[in-house]
Every structure is written in C-alpha cells, then in structure tokens.
C-alpha cells in the first residue's frame, strides 16, 4: 500500500475525474488485497448478507471501474434477486472486462433465458460451456444443470402436446 501512496501523479484527481486513472491510485491496494476484498464480498453474498456484499461490490467498482469483480458480484446478486434488467447490465459489463470467465457467461445465459431471449441465452451458455471444457467450474455446472433440466421439461411438454393433439 505504501509504495503506491508515495507515487501519486500530479493532478491525479483531475485524471480520476476524467476516467484516466482509478481512485485506487490514492489507496494503492495491490492485486492480492483487491482479490481478498472481492472474496469477502462473494462470501457475504453466499451467506445472504446482500446489503453488505453490495457495499463491497460497489466500492470495488468505485475503486477501479476496469476491474470486473464488482460488476460480476452485482450481476450475480441481481440475478439471484430476479432483477433481470439490472443483472444484464452488470453482467454485460463484467463480460466485456473479463471475456474468459465461464461463470459470468453462465449467469448472462441464465438471465437471458429467464427473459425468454432464447437465441442470446443459448449463445452465452455455449461460451460458458466452451470455457470450462473440464466441467469443473461451479458456475458453468449450474448452467449445465439448468440446460439438462430444461431439456427434460421441454421433452415432457412436447410429449404432452402430442398426446393432447392425438386425443
């Protein structure tokens, strides 16, 4: 932390306001500390302490808007609360900043599926699955379970529809 505190560029605030520098230039939190803050936010969300988690995620976005953690956390939380438009906006930003994260694409797919945007949902799910070829990622595996579940439901509905047509 001290190293960054010692090297704040001249007129840093003007650059921060112009979006050229993150606020973190004043704090100098290193990557390990930022990751730990993100992990704290994720843990709070997992425990259902969403308002505390929100403070961490929004703080991370304020600290460095180029870091995807805050957007990914806010997106997952909005999706879990079924605030789909909000989730979509945060998750699209997270995917733009970190395009190789299977969980973010899985969450985007789920959001779009819930919105009945089937083509876009399928495209996001395909990205999530491709990025997790070993089928180890919990976020991508949630997507796989949803797809498998939907396959069963659709297959049963099709069977019922055919049966109704024959009757």
């Amino acid at each position, binding site marked *: 932390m001290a190293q960054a505190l010692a090297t704040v560029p001249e007129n840093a605030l003007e650059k921060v306001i112009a979006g050229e520098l993150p606020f973190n230039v004043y704090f100098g939190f290193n990557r390990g500390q930022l990751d730990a803050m993100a992990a704290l936010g994720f843990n709070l969300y997992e425990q259902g302490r969403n308002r505390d988690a929100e403070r961490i995620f929004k703080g991370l976005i304020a600290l460095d808007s180029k870091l995807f953690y805050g957007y990914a956390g806010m997106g997952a939380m909005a999706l*879990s609360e079924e605030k789909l438009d909000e989730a979509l906006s945060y998750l699209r930003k997270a995917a733009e900043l970190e395009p190789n994260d299977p969980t973010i694409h899985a969450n985007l797919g789920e959001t779009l*599926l*819930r919105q009945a945007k089937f083509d876009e949902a399928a495209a996001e799910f395909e990205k999530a699955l491709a990025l997790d070829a070993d089928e180890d990622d919990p976020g991508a595996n949630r997507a796989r379970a949803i797809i498998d579940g939907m396959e069963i439901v659709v297959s049963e509905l099709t069977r019922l529809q055919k049966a109704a047509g024959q009757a």
Partner: protein
Amino acid sequence: MPAAIPLVGSLLSGPVGGVVNSVVGGIAGNLGAGGAGGAGGPGGIFGNLLGGIGKSFGKLFGRKKKKRHHQCQPKPQCCSQQHIQFPTQQNPLGQLGNLGDVLGGLVKMLQDLIGKLTGSTAGGAAGAAGAAGAAGAAAGAAAGATGSGTPAGSASGKGEYAALNSLQGEVDSLKEKLKSGKATRGEELDFQEKSSQLTRLFEMLSTMIRQQSDMTKTAIQNIR
C-alpha cells in the same frame, strides 16, 4: 405454459428443481408480457416456449457430457475461481488484516473528503449529501468497532496518508474552480459522480472494518 410450472416439480427434485422452476416461471412471465414474439393466449406461450427453446437450444440439448450429473449451485456464482488470485480456503479478512489501522485512518479521511465534496456543489447534490450523512453515521460505527480512534487531524500528519492528503489539496483547488464559476456543467456533474464514488468507497471500507470487528468479537467469545 402455466401448466408447465407444476410439471417441473414432478420431473425434477433438489436444487435443480427449484432453479428450473424459477427459470420456467420467469420465461412464462416474460412470454406472457409480450416477450419473444408475444403470447397469443396460453397455447401461444406454450408453443413459443417449445418452438423458441427447441430451435435455439438444439445444440445444447444434444451435447456430449463428460460427467453424468452436474451439481446445481442453489445461487448464481459470482465468478470463476481461476480468475480470482486469492486462495478461497483462506480468510479474506486475514489478508486484509495486514492493512491494520490504516483502514480506520482512511475511513476518517474519506469522511472529511466527502464532507468537502458534497459541500462544494452548491446544494445541487442533495442525494450525495444524504449519502454522506449516512456515511458519517457508519464512520462513527466503524471507528467504534475498530477502536483505532485515529483522528483525521492526526492521520493527515502521518506520511502513510500522504496520497489522501494530496487528494484533499486537489479537492480544495477543484472546489475553488467550481465556486468561481469557471467549471462547466459537465465538470460539475463529473465532480458529483466522483463524490458518490468516494461515498461508496467509504461504505466499503466501513463494511470491511465492521466485518473484522465482528470476527474479532466472535473469536474472543469463542476463547472465553
């Protein structure tokens, strides 16, 4: 389509049943609300679901799997572990704990800065001022929780807060610019946005301190 919702419960059990049920409910709501080509009555919704999903998810439904079953996490995950350079088995507060009392000092300095920023926008930032008020209350709680009691005045005298001291100076000069009427409306709005961001930073650091304090209290109670 509404008939599909109880059907899910009879087909799928456990977490995946709950999640798929909620997904199907969401789709039904959106199709009924005119999404994806409109509803056209219950039959239309039913047809839209089968037609839409069948067409878009054809490749996904028929895909090869390495594992027979995939665990369905009850809540959406935030991000993949591979992209977070922090060992999840470690306590994040332990990692942040090495910031020590610095966090307490930062929180107090941020409180001062927010006061300065919100006071500078000629009453145009009522929301931000309200947020700063709330943040001020949180600061009291945070300071009480940490027990560090580093007053902002003494913090500004310390070298470790030099960067935030320089921020204080820059805020002063920007305030002058705003007051003198030389700033554009855009600059003023940018300034207000940064005030809100500082408030969010303040709330984050206060929350972190409160978590640390709660954990310490729990640890002490467990020892006793």
